Protein backbone atom coordinates (compact mmCIF):
# COMPACT_ATOMS: atom_id res chain seq x y z
CA UNK A 1 0.00 0.00 0.00
CA UNK A 2 2.81 2.41 0.88
CA UNK A 3 6.50 2.14 0.20
CA UNK A 4 9.15 4.50 1.55
CA UNK A 5 12.45 4.26 -0.32
CA UNK A 6 15.70 5.75 0.99
CA UNK A 7 13.99 8.78 2.56
CA UNK A 8 16.33 11.56 3.72
CA UNK A 9 15.44 14.70 5.65
CA UNK A 10 17.68 17.12 7.52
CA UNK A 11 16.75 20.18 9.55
CA UNK A 12 19.80 22.42 9.49
CA UNK A 13 22.60 20.20 10.70
CA UNK A 14 20.31 17.61 12.26
CA UNK A 15 19.74 14.51 10.16
CA UNK A 16 16.21 13.58 11.23
CA UNK A 17 15.72 10.80 8.68
CA UNK A 18 18.57 9.00 6.88
CA UNK A 19 18.04 6.38 4.17
CA UNK A 20 14.81 5.19 5.72
CA UNK A 21 13.05 2.43 3.78
CA UNK A 22 10.06 0.33 4.79
CA UNK A 23 6.77 -0.91 3.45
CA UNK A 24 3.23 -0.77 4.81
CA UNK A 25 1.14 -3.73 3.69
CA UNK A 26 -2.58 -3.44 2.93
CA UNK A 27 -5.24 -4.36 5.49
CA UNK A 28 -2.79 -4.52 8.38
CA UNK A 29 -1.90 -2.32 11.32
CA UNK A 30 1.77 -1.40 11.07
CA UNK A 31 3.40 0.29 14.05
CA UNK A 32 6.36 2.64 13.75
CA UNK A 33 8.21 2.65 17.06
CA UNK A 34 11.52 3.92 18.36
CA UNK A 35 13.04 6.12 21.03
CA UNK A 36 12.36 9.88 21.09
CA UNK A 37 14.12 11.65 18.21
CA UNK A 38 14.23 8.48 16.10
CA UNK A 39 12.53 10.35 13.22
CA UNK A 40 9.08 8.73 13.38
CA UNK A 41 7.02 11.93 13.26
CA UNK A 42 9.28 13.33 10.53
CA UNK A 43 8.54 10.22 8.46
CA UNK A 44 4.81 10.88 9.05
CA UNK A 45 5.25 14.49 7.97
CA UNK A 46 7.14 13.40 4.86
CA UNK A 47 4.43 10.90 3.93
CA UNK A 48 1.59 13.39 4.44
CA UNK A 49 3.44 16.15 2.55
CA UNK A 50 3.84 18.56 5.45
CA UNK A 51 7.62 18.57 5.10
CA UNK A 52 9.48 18.03 1.86
CA UNK A 53 12.02 15.23 1.52
CA UNK A 54 15.66 16.02 0.68
CA UNK A 55 15.93 12.69 -1.14
CA UNK A 56 14.10 9.38 -1.53
CA UNK A 57 10.72 8.34 -2.80
CA UNK A 58 7.29 7.58 -1.36
CA UNK A 59 4.99 5.39 -3.45
CA UNK A 60 1.34 5.18 -2.48
CA UNK A 61 -1.10 2.67 -3.84
CA UNK A 62 -4.73 3.71 -3.53
CA UNK A 63 -6.68 0.48 -3.73
CA UNK A 64 -10.34 1.47 -3.87
CA UNK A 65 -12.61 4.36 -4.82
CA UNK A 66 -12.71 6.91 -2.03
CA UNK A 67 -15.99 8.84 -1.86
CA UNK A 68 -16.04 11.75 -4.32
CA UNK A 69 -12.31 12.24 -4.06
CA UNK A 70 -10.04 11.43 -6.96
CA UNK A 71 -8.14 8.23 -6.59
CA UNK A 72 -5.29 6.87 -8.62
CA UNK A 73 -5.14 3.20 -9.57
CA UNK A 74 -1.55 2.02 -9.56
CA UNK A 75 1.27 3.15 -7.32
CA UNK A 76 1.62 6.91 -7.36
CA UNK A 77 4.79 8.77 -6.47
CA UNK A 78 3.57 11.16 -3.77
CA UNK A 79 6.99 12.46 -2.75
CA UNK A 80 6.79 16.21 -2.07
CA UNK A 81 3.18 16.51 -3.25
CA UNK A 82 1.02 19.04 -1.38
CA UNK A 83 -0.78 17.83 1.77
CA UNK A 84 -4.21 18.44 0.23
CA UNK A 85 -3.29 16.48 -2.93
CA UNK A 86 -2.09 13.58 -0.77
CA UNK A 87 -5.24 13.77 1.38
CA UNK A 88 -7.37 13.70 -1.75
CA UNK A 89 -5.60 10.53 -2.90
CA UNK A 90 -7.09 8.82 0.13
CA UNK A 91 -4.69 9.38 3.01
CA UNK A 92 -5.87 10.56 6.39
CA UNK A 93 -3.85 11.37 9.48
CA UNK A 94 -3.99 12.17 13.17
CA UNK A 95 -1.40 14.57 14.61
CA UNK A 96 0.69 14.00 17.71
CA UNK A 97 -0.61 17.21 19.28
CA UNK A 98 -4.26 18.15 19.25
CA UNK A 99 -5.09 20.08 16.09
CA UNK A 100 -8.81 20.56 15.86
CA UNK A 101 -10.36 23.68 14.34
CA UNK A 102 -10.84 25.23 17.77
CA UNK A 103 -13.40 27.87 16.79
CA UNK A 104 -15.69 25.39 15.07
CA UNK A 105 -18.15 22.94 16.58
CA UNK A 106 -17.37 19.23 16.78
CA UNK A 107 -19.93 18.67 14.01
CA UNK A 108 -18.32 21.27 11.70
CA UNK A 109 -14.88 19.82 12.35
CA UNK A 110 -16.14 16.48 11.12
CA UNK A 111 -18.19 17.94 8.28
CA UNK A 112 -15.09 19.52 6.73
CA UNK A 113 -13.41 16.13 6.61
CA UNK A 114 -16.23 14.37 4.73
CA UNK A 115 -15.60 15.69 1.22
CA UNK A 116 -13.79 18.42 -0.67
CA UNK A 117 -16.86 20.19 -1.99
CA UNK A 118 -16.16 23.17 0.28
CA UNK A 119 -14.53 25.37 -2.30
CA UNK A 120 -17.21 25.13 -4.96
CA UNK A 121 -18.64 28.61 -4.52
CA UNK A 122 -21.60 28.37 -6.88
CA UNK A 123 -22.69 25.11 -5.28
CA UNK A 124 -22.54 26.87 -1.93
CA UNK A 125 -24.35 29.93 -3.24
CA UNK A 126 -27.14 27.93 -4.83
CA UNK A 127 -27.50 25.83 -1.72
CA UNK A 128 -26.51 22.67 -3.60
CA UNK A 129 -23.79 21.80 -1.15
CA UNK A 130 -26.26 21.37 1.65
CA UNK A 131 -25.30 19.57 4.76
CA UNK A 132 -27.35 16.53 3.77
CA UNK A 133 -29.00 14.02 6.08
CA UNK A 134 -26.56 11.46 4.75
CA UNK A 135 -23.60 13.56 5.90
CA UNK A 136 -25.26 14.26 9.24
CA UNK A 137 -25.91 10.53 9.58
CA UNK A 138 -22.26 9.64 9.06
CA UNK A 139 -21.21 12.30 11.59
CA UNK A 140 -23.61 10.87 14.17
CA UNK A 141 -22.40 7.36 13.44
CA UNK A 142 -18.73 8.24 13.87
CA UNK A 143 -19.44 10.19 17.07
CA UNK A 144 -21.21 7.11 18.41
CA UNK A 145 -18.18 5.01 17.55
CA UNK A 146 -15.91 7.28 19.62
CA UNK A 147 -18.59 7.65 22.32
CA UNK A 148 -18.96 11.41 21.81
CA UNK A 149 -22.58 11.63 20.54
CA UNK A 150 -23.62 14.25 23.07
CA UNK A 151 -20.82 16.65 22.12
CA UNK A 152 -21.89 17.27 18.53
CA UNK A 153 -22.63 20.97 19.01
CA UNK A 154 -19.83 21.78 21.45
CA UNK A 155 -17.12 24.23 20.36
CA UNK A 156 -13.90 22.23 19.95
CA UNK A 157 -11.83 24.50 22.20
CA UNK A 158 -14.10 23.69 25.17
CA UNK A 159 -13.38 19.94 25.06
CA UNK A 160 -10.98 18.16 27.38
CA UNK A 161 -7.72 16.69 26.07
CA UNK A 162 -9.10 13.15 25.81
CA UNK A 163 -12.29 14.34 24.12
CA UNK A 164 -10.28 16.34 21.58
CA UNK A 165 -8.25 13.22 20.85
CA UNK A 166 -11.41 11.22 20.18
CA UNK A 167 -12.88 13.91 17.90
CA UNK A 168 -9.58 14.07 16.01
CA UNK A 169 -9.61 10.32 15.64
CA UNK A 170 -13.21 10.52 14.39
CA UNK A 171 -12.17 13.21 11.90
CA UNK A 172 -9.26 11.12 10.64
CA UNK A 173 -11.57 8.12 10.20
CA UNK A 174 -14.29 10.19 8.50
CA UNK A 175 -11.87 11.83 6.05
CA UNK A 176 -12.35 9.54 3.01
CA UNK A 177 -9.28 7.35 2.92
CA UNK A 178 -7.75 4.01 2.16
CA UNK A 179 -4.79 4.63 4.41
CA UNK A 180 -4.91 5.96 7.96
CA UNK A 181 -1.90 7.38 9.82
CA UNK A 182 -2.14 7.85 13.57
CA UNK A 183 0.57 9.70 15.48
CA UNK A 184 0.42 8.67 19.14
CA UNK A 185 -3.35 8.22 19.37
CA UNK A 186 -3.30 7.25 23.05
CA UNK A 187 -0.61 9.63 24.38
CA UNK A 188 -1.92 11.32 27.53
CA UNK A 189 -5.20 9.44 27.31
CA UNK A 190 -6.70 7.64 30.33
CA UNK A 191 -6.79 3.78 30.42
CA UNK A 192 -10.52 3.57 29.66
CA UNK A 193 -10.15 5.72 26.56
CA UNK A 194 -7.12 3.67 25.50
CA UNK A 195 -9.31 0.63 25.48
CA UNK A 196 -11.94 2.48 23.43
CA UNK A 197 -9.30 3.57 20.90
CA UNK A 198 -7.76 0.07 20.73
CA UNK A 199 -11.20 -1.39 19.99
CA UNK A 200 -11.82 1.22 17.29
CA UNK A 201 -8.52 0.34 15.61
CA UNK A 202 -9.30 -3.36 15.70
CA UNK A 203 -12.76 -2.66 14.28
CA UNK A 204 -11.21 -0.64 11.45
CA UNK A 205 -8.78 -3.46 10.76
CA UNK A 206 -11.67 -5.90 10.59
CA UNK A 207 -13.10 -3.59 7.88
CA UNK A 208 -9.89 -4.13 5.87
CA UNK A 209 -8.41 -0.71 6.66
CA UNK A 210 -4.68 -0.10 6.43
CA UNK A 211 -3.24 1.75 9.40
CA UNK A 212 0.22 3.13 10.15
CA UNK A 213 0.66 3.93 13.80
CA UNK A 214 3.26 5.71 15.93
CA UNK A 215 2.98 4.88 19.61
CA UNK A 216 5.21 4.89 22.67
CA UNK A 217 2.86 2.74 24.74
CA UNK A 218 4.30 -0.71 23.96
CA UNK A 219 1.46 -2.61 25.60
CA UNK A 220 -1.03 -0.79 23.38
CA UNK A 221 1.18 -1.15 20.28
CA UNK A 222 1.75 -4.88 20.66
CA UNK A 223 -1.93 -5.48 21.37
CA UNK A 224 -3.09 -3.98 18.06
CA UNK A 225 -0.18 -4.12 15.60
CA UNK A 226 0.39 -6.87 13.02
CA UNK A 227 3.79 -5.61 11.95
CA UNK A 228 6.30 -3.42 13.78
CA UNK A 229 8.99 -1.19 12.24
CA UNK A 230 11.60 0.01 14.73
CA UNK A 231 13.44 3.24 13.95
CA UNK A 232 16.60 4.59 15.52
CA UNK A 233 18.55 7.72 14.56
CA UNK A 234 16.51 8.23 11.41
CA UNK A 235 16.97 4.69 10.08
CA UNK A 236 15.01 1.46 10.23
CA UNK A 237 16.74 -0.66 12.85
CA UNK A 238 14.67 -3.79 12.49
CA UNK A 239 11.16 -4.85 11.51
CA UNK A 240 9.01 -7.89 12.14
CA UNK A 241 5.99 -9.36 13.90
CA UNK A 242 5.28 -7.99 17.41
CA UNK A 243 6.46 -11.19 19.13
CA UNK A 244 9.77 -11.11 17.28
CA UNK A 245 10.32 -7.42 18.02
CA UNK A 246 9.49 -7.76 21.72
CA UNK A 247 12.47 -10.02 22.29
CA UNK A 248 14.85 -8.59 19.74
CA UNK A 249 18.12 -7.64 21.51
CA UNK A 250 18.73 -4.69 19.14
CA UNK A 251 15.34 -3.22 20.08
CA UNK A 252 15.97 -3.73 23.79
CA UNK A 253 19.30 -2.01 23.42
CA UNK A 254 17.78 0.91 21.51
CA UNK A 255 15.16 1.43 24.20
CA UNK A 256 17.09 0.55 27.32
CA UNK A 257 20.60 1.44 26.16
CA UNK A 258 21.96 -1.91 27.25
Amino acid at each position, binding site marked *: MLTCLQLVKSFGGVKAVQSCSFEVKSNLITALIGPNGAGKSTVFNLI*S*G*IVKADAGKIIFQASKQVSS*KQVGGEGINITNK*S*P*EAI*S*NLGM*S*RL*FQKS*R*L*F*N*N*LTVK*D*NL*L*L*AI*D*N*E*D*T*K*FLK*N*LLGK*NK*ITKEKEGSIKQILKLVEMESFENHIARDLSFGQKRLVELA*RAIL*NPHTFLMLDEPVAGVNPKLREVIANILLELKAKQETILLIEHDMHFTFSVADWVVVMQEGKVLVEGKPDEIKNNPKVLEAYLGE
Partner: protein
Amino acid sequence: MFTQLLVNGLIAGAIYALVASGFSLIYATCKFVHFAHGPVIALAGYFLYLFFSLLGLNFWIAIILAIILAAFFGLAINVLVYKKFRQRKASPVILLIASFALLILFESLILIFFGADVKTIGFIKIAKGSEFAGAIITPLQIVIIIASAVLFALLFLLMKKTKLGKAMRAVADNKQVSEICGISTEKIYNWVFIIGSTIAGVAGILVGLEQNLEPTMGTSLMIKGFTGAVIGGIGSVPGAILGSFLLGLVENFGIWFLPSGYKDAIAFIILFIFLLFRPQGILGKKNQSN
Protein backbone atom coordinates in the same frame (compact mmCIF):
# COMPACT_ATOMS: atom_id res chain seq x y z
CA MET B 1 -28.22 67.55 17.35
CA PHE B 2 -27.85 64.22 19.16
CA THR B 3 -29.94 62.25 16.64
CA GLN B 4 -28.21 63.98 13.72
CA LEU B 5 -24.78 62.99 15.05
CA LEU B 6 -26.08 59.48 15.75
CA VAL B 7 -27.30 59.15 12.15
CA ASN B 8 -24.05 60.59 10.77
CA GLY B 9 -22.09 58.23 13.00
CA LEU B 10 -24.09 55.22 11.82
CA ILE B 11 -23.59 56.13 8.15
CA ALA B 12 -19.84 56.64 8.60
CA GLY B 13 -19.72 53.43 10.65
CA ALA B 14 -21.55 51.46 7.94
CA ILE B 15 -19.00 52.55 5.31
CA TYR B 16 -16.04 51.83 7.60
CA ALA B 17 -17.57 48.47 8.49
CA LEU B 18 -17.87 47.49 4.81
CA VAL B 19 -14.18 48.27 4.36
CA ALA B 20 -13.17 46.60 7.63
CA SER B 21 -15.20 43.41 7.17
CA GLY B 22 -13.57 42.55 3.83
CA PHE B 23 -10.15 43.52 5.11
CA SER B 24 -10.62 41.53 8.31
CA LEU B 25 -11.88 38.47 6.42
CA ILE B 26 -8.72 38.51 4.30
CA TYR B 27 -6.50 39.10 7.34
CA ALA B 28 -8.11 36.32 9.38
CA THR B 29 -7.77 33.76 6.61
CA CYS B 30 -4.53 34.71 4.86
CA LYS B 31 -2.76 36.06 7.99
CA PHE B 32 -1.29 39.23 6.54
CA VAL B 33 -2.34 42.88 6.30
CA HIS B 34 -3.68 43.57 2.81
CA PHE B 35 -3.35 47.36 2.52
CA ALA B 36 -4.00 47.17 -1.22
CA HIS B 37 -7.65 46.67 -0.19
CA GLY B 38 -7.74 50.52 -0.34
CA PRO B 39 -7.23 50.88 -4.11
CA VAL B 40 -9.83 48.12 -4.69
CA ILE B 41 -12.37 50.42 -3.00
CA ALA B 42 -11.24 53.44 -5.02
CA LEU B 43 -11.18 51.51 -8.29
CA ALA B 44 -14.79 50.36 -7.84
CA GLY B 45 -15.83 54.01 -7.60
CA TYR B 46 -13.73 54.92 -10.63
CA PHE B 47 -15.04 51.96 -12.63
CA LEU B 48 -18.57 53.25 -11.98
CA TYR B 49 -17.45 56.72 -13.10
CA LEU B 50 -15.91 55.22 -16.25
CA PHE B 51 -18.89 53.07 -17.22
CA PHE B 52 -21.68 55.43 -16.22
CA SER B 53 -20.36 58.97 -16.52
CA LEU B 54 -17.81 58.52 -19.32
CA LEU B 55 -19.16 55.62 -21.41
CA GLY B 56 -22.83 56.29 -20.72
CA LEU B 57 -23.84 52.75 -19.76
CA ASN B 58 -27.05 52.10 -17.84
CA PHE B 59 -26.50 53.02 -14.18
CA TRP B 60 -27.38 49.61 -12.75
CA ILE B 61 -25.33 47.71 -15.34
CA ALA B 62 -22.44 50.06 -14.58
CA ILE B 63 -22.78 49.29 -10.85
CA ILE B 64 -22.80 45.51 -11.43
CA LEU B 65 -19.81 45.73 -13.78
CA ALA B 66 -17.90 47.90 -11.28
CA ILE B 67 -18.52 45.40 -8.45
CA ILE B 68 -17.55 42.41 -10.61
CA LEU B 69 -14.37 44.17 -11.75
CA ALA B 70 -13.49 45.05 -8.14
CA ALA B 71 -13.91 41.37 -7.20
CA PHE B 72 -11.71 40.23 -10.08
CA PHE B 73 -9.19 42.93 -9.30
CA GLY B 74 -8.86 41.60 -5.74
CA LEU B 75 -8.56 38.05 -7.07
CA ALA B 76 -5.91 39.14 -9.59
CA ILE B 77 -3.84 40.79 -6.83
CA ASN B 78 -3.94 37.53 -4.88
CA VAL B 79 -3.12 35.25 -7.80
CA LEU B 80 -0.54 37.40 -9.56
CA VAL B 81 1.26 38.87 -6.56
CA TYR B 82 0.56 37.34 -3.14
CA LYS B 83 0.43 33.73 -4.37
CA LYS B 84 3.87 34.11 -5.98
CA PHE B 85 5.25 35.40 -2.68
CA ARG B 86 3.64 32.56 -0.74
CA GLN B 87 5.19 30.04 -3.14
CA ARG B 88 8.56 31.56 -2.25
CA LYS B 89 7.71 31.12 1.46
CA ALA B 90 7.57 34.90 2.03
CA SER B 91 6.77 36.00 5.58
CA PRO B 92 3.63 38.06 6.39
CA VAL B 93 5.89 41.13 6.70
CA ILE B 94 7.04 40.74 3.09
CA LEU B 95 3.41 40.41 2.01
CA LEU B 96 2.56 43.55 4.00
CA ILE B 97 5.34 45.48 2.23
CA ALA B 98 4.12 44.13 -1.12
CA SER B 99 0.60 45.29 -0.26
CA PHE B 100 1.93 48.79 0.49
CA ALA B 101 3.75 48.83 -2.82
CA LEU B 102 0.54 47.81 -4.60
CA LEU B 103 -1.40 50.52 -2.76
CA ILE B 104 1.04 53.20 -3.99
CA LEU B 105 1.17 51.69 -7.49
CA PHE B 106 -2.59 51.57 -8.00
CA GLU B 107 -3.15 54.98 -6.45
CA SER B 108 -0.62 56.38 -8.92
CA LEU B 109 -2.26 54.55 -11.82
CA ILE B 110 -5.65 56.05 -10.90
CA LEU B 111 -3.93 59.44 -10.82
CA ILE B 112 -2.40 58.88 -14.29
CA PHE B 113 -5.58 57.60 -15.92
CA PHE B 114 -8.23 59.73 -14.24
CA GLY B 115 -6.30 62.79 -13.07
CA ALA B 116 -5.89 64.36 -9.66
CA ASP B 117 -9.07 66.42 -9.76
CA VAL B 118 -12.16 65.38 -7.87
CA LYS B 119 -14.70 63.48 -9.99
CA THR B 120 -18.44 63.41 -9.51
CA ILE B 121 -20.54 60.47 -10.67
CA GLY B 122 -23.60 62.70 -10.81
CA PHE B 123 -26.33 60.05 -10.88
CA ILE B 124 -28.08 61.29 -7.79
CA LYS B 125 -29.17 64.89 -7.86
CA ILE B 126 -28.74 66.67 -4.58
CA ALA B 127 -31.72 65.30 -2.73
CA LYS B 128 -33.53 67.03 0.03
CA GLY B 129 -33.15 64.86 3.05
CA SER B 130 -36.15 63.68 4.95
CA GLU B 131 -36.48 64.42 8.62
CA PHE B 132 -36.35 61.49 10.97
CA ALA B 133 -36.63 62.09 14.72
CA GLY B 134 -34.99 65.47 14.36
CA ALA B 135 -32.21 64.30 12.05
CA ILE B 136 -31.91 64.93 8.33
CA ILE B 137 -31.18 61.79 6.32
CA THR B 138 -30.94 61.58 2.52
CA PRO B 139 -32.33 58.63 0.52
CA LEU B 140 -28.79 57.59 -0.42
CA GLN B 141 -27.81 57.49 3.23
CA ILE B 142 -30.74 55.16 3.91
CA VAL B 143 -29.52 52.99 1.02
CA ILE B 144 -26.02 52.93 2.57
CA ILE B 145 -27.36 51.67 5.89
CA ILE B 146 -29.69 49.09 4.31
CA ALA B 147 -27.07 47.84 1.81
CA SER B 148 -24.46 47.36 4.50
CA ALA B 149 -26.93 45.62 6.83
CA VAL B 150 -27.92 43.23 4.00
CA LEU B 151 -24.27 42.53 3.13
CA PHE B 152 -23.36 41.84 6.77
CA ALA B 153 -26.30 39.45 7.09
CA LEU B 154 -25.25 37.63 3.88
CA LEU B 155 -21.66 37.47 5.06
CA PHE B 156 -22.81 36.05 8.40
CA LEU B 157 -24.92 33.39 6.66
CA LEU B 158 -22.06 32.51 4.32
CA MET B 159 -19.60 32.09 7.17
CA LYS B 160 -21.91 30.19 9.51
CA LYS B 161 -24.17 28.13 7.30
CA THR B 162 -22.31 27.16 4.14
CA LYS B 163 -19.52 24.65 3.82
CA LEU B 164 -17.41 27.25 2.03
CA GLY B 165 -17.75 29.56 5.04
CA LYS B 166 -16.88 26.77 7.45
CA ALA B 167 -13.87 25.89 5.27
CA MET B 168 -12.79 29.56 5.38
CA ARG B 169 -13.00 29.52 9.17
CA ALA B 170 -11.09 26.24 9.22
CA VAL B 171 -8.26 27.69 7.11
CA ALA B 172 -8.24 30.79 9.35
CA ASP B 173 -7.99 28.48 12.36
CA ASN B 174 -5.31 26.10 11.12
CA LYS B 175 -4.02 26.07 7.56
CA GLN B 176 -2.00 22.88 7.92
CA VAL B 177 -4.84 20.79 9.32
CA SER B 178 -7.17 22.16 6.63
CA GLU B 179 -4.79 20.85 3.99
CA ILE B 180 -4.62 17.48 5.72
CA CYS B 181 -8.44 17.41 5.56
CA GLY B 182 -8.15 17.93 1.78
CA ILE B 183 -9.21 21.61 1.74
CA SER B 184 -7.37 23.55 -0.96
CA THR B 185 -6.10 26.61 0.92
CA GLU B 186 -5.19 28.44 -2.28
CA LYS B 187 -8.78 28.11 -3.54
CA ILE B 188 -10.06 29.35 -0.18
CA TYR B 189 -7.67 32.35 -0.39
CA ASN B 190 -9.06 33.12 -3.85
CA TRP B 191 -12.64 33.08 -2.55
CA VAL B 192 -11.73 35.22 0.42
CA PHE B 193 -10.22 37.84 -1.91
CA ILE B 194 -13.25 37.70 -4.20
CA ILE B 195 -15.71 38.11 -1.33
CA GLY B 196 -13.64 40.75 0.50
CA SER B 197 -13.11 42.74 -2.69
CA THR B 198 -16.81 42.51 -3.64
CA ILE B 199 -17.71 44.11 -0.31
CA ALA B 200 -14.95 46.69 -0.86
CA GLY B 201 -16.45 47.36 -4.30
CA VAL B 202 -19.85 48.09 -2.78
CA ALA B 203 -18.20 50.44 -0.27
CA GLY B 204 -16.34 52.27 -3.07
CA ILE B 205 -19.53 52.73 -5.05
CA LEU B 206 -21.53 53.99 -2.07
CA VAL B 207 -18.81 56.44 -1.08
CA GLY B 208 -18.42 57.54 -4.70
CA LEU B 209 -22.13 58.28 -4.90
CA GLU B 210 -22.38 60.00 -1.54
CA GLN B 211 -19.21 62.01 -1.73
CA ASN B 212 -16.86 62.44 -4.68
CA LEU B 213 -14.07 60.41 -6.23
CA GLU B 214 -10.42 61.20 -5.65
CA PRO B 215 -7.37 58.97 -6.12
CA THR B 216 -6.53 58.82 -2.41
CA MET B 217 -10.07 57.94 -1.25
CA GLY B 218 -9.21 54.24 -0.95
CA THR B 219 -6.24 54.90 1.29
CA SER B 220 -8.19 57.16 3.66
CA LEU B 221 -11.02 54.63 3.86
CA MET B 222 -8.55 51.79 4.33
CA ILE B 223 -6.97 53.60 7.29
CA LYS B 224 -10.41 54.02 8.88
CA GLY B 225 -11.36 50.42 8.13
CA PHE B 226 -8.06 49.20 9.54
CA THR B 227 -8.61 51.30 12.69
CA GLY B 228 -12.12 49.84 13.03
CA ALA B 229 -10.76 46.32 12.58
CA VAL B 230 -8.07 46.85 15.24
CA ILE B 231 -10.55 48.37 17.69
CA GLY B 232 -12.99 45.50 17.15
CA GLY B 233 -10.34 42.80 17.36
CA ILE B 234 -8.16 42.15 14.35
CA GLY B 235 -9.03 38.90 12.60
CA SER B 236 -12.62 38.89 13.86
CA VAL B 237 -15.15 39.91 11.20
CA PRO B 238 -17.97 40.69 13.69
CA GLY B 239 -15.38 42.59 15.75
CA ALA B 240 -14.35 44.63 12.70
CA ILE B 241 -17.98 45.59 12.06
CA LEU B 242 -18.53 46.51 15.71
CA GLY B 243 -15.27 48.47 15.92
CA SER B 244 -16.08 50.38 12.73
CA PHE B 245 -19.50 51.46 13.98
CA LEU B 246 -17.91 52.50 17.26
CA LEU B 247 -15.32 54.51 15.34
CA GLY B 248 -17.97 56.19 13.18
CA LEU B 249 -20.02 57.14 16.22
CA VAL B 250 -17.10 58.42 18.31
CA GLU B 251 -15.76 60.44 15.38
CA ASN B 252 -19.10 62.11 14.84
CA PHE B 253 -19.96 62.67 18.49
CA GLY B 254 -16.43 64.00 18.97
CA ILE B 255 -17.12 66.95 16.70
CA TRP B 256 -19.86 67.99 19.09
CA PHE B 257 -17.01 69.22 21.29
CA LEU B 258 -14.20 69.73 18.79
CA PRO B 259 -13.93 71.35 15.36
CA SER B 260 -14.74 68.89 12.54
CA GLY B 261 -11.12 69.03 11.34
CA TYR B 262 -10.21 66.88 14.35
CA LYS B 263 -12.28 63.92 13.07
CA ASP B 264 -9.23 61.94 11.94
CA ALA B 265 -7.32 62.84 15.08
CA ILE B 266 -10.16 61.39 17.17
CA ALA B 267 -9.94 58.13 15.19
CA PHE B 268 -6.22 57.81 15.84
CA ILE B 269 -6.52 58.70 19.51
CA ILE B 270 -9.02 55.83 19.91
CA LEU B 271 -6.64 53.55 18.00
CA PHE B 272 -3.77 54.47 20.35
CA ILE B 273 -5.94 53.99 23.43
CA PHE B 274 -6.93 50.51 22.24
CA LEU B 275 -3.39 49.56 21.25
CA LEU B 276 -2.16 50.61 24.69
CA PHE B 277 -4.88 49.20 26.91
CA ARG B 278 -6.66 46.50 24.91
CA PRO B 279 -4.47 45.54 21.95
CA GLN B 280 -6.60 42.48 21.23
CA GLY B 281 -9.61 44.78 20.56
CA ILE B 282 -13.19 44.40 21.72
CA LEU B 283 -13.88 40.87 20.47
CA GLY B 284 -10.33 39.62 19.88
CA LYS B 285 -8.78 36.96 22.04
CA LYS B 286 -5.55 37.67 23.84
CA ASN B 287 -3.68 34.73 22.33
CA GLN B 288 -4.68 35.75 18.79
CA SER B 289 -1.77 38.17 18.66
CA ASN B 290 0.65 35.36 19.39
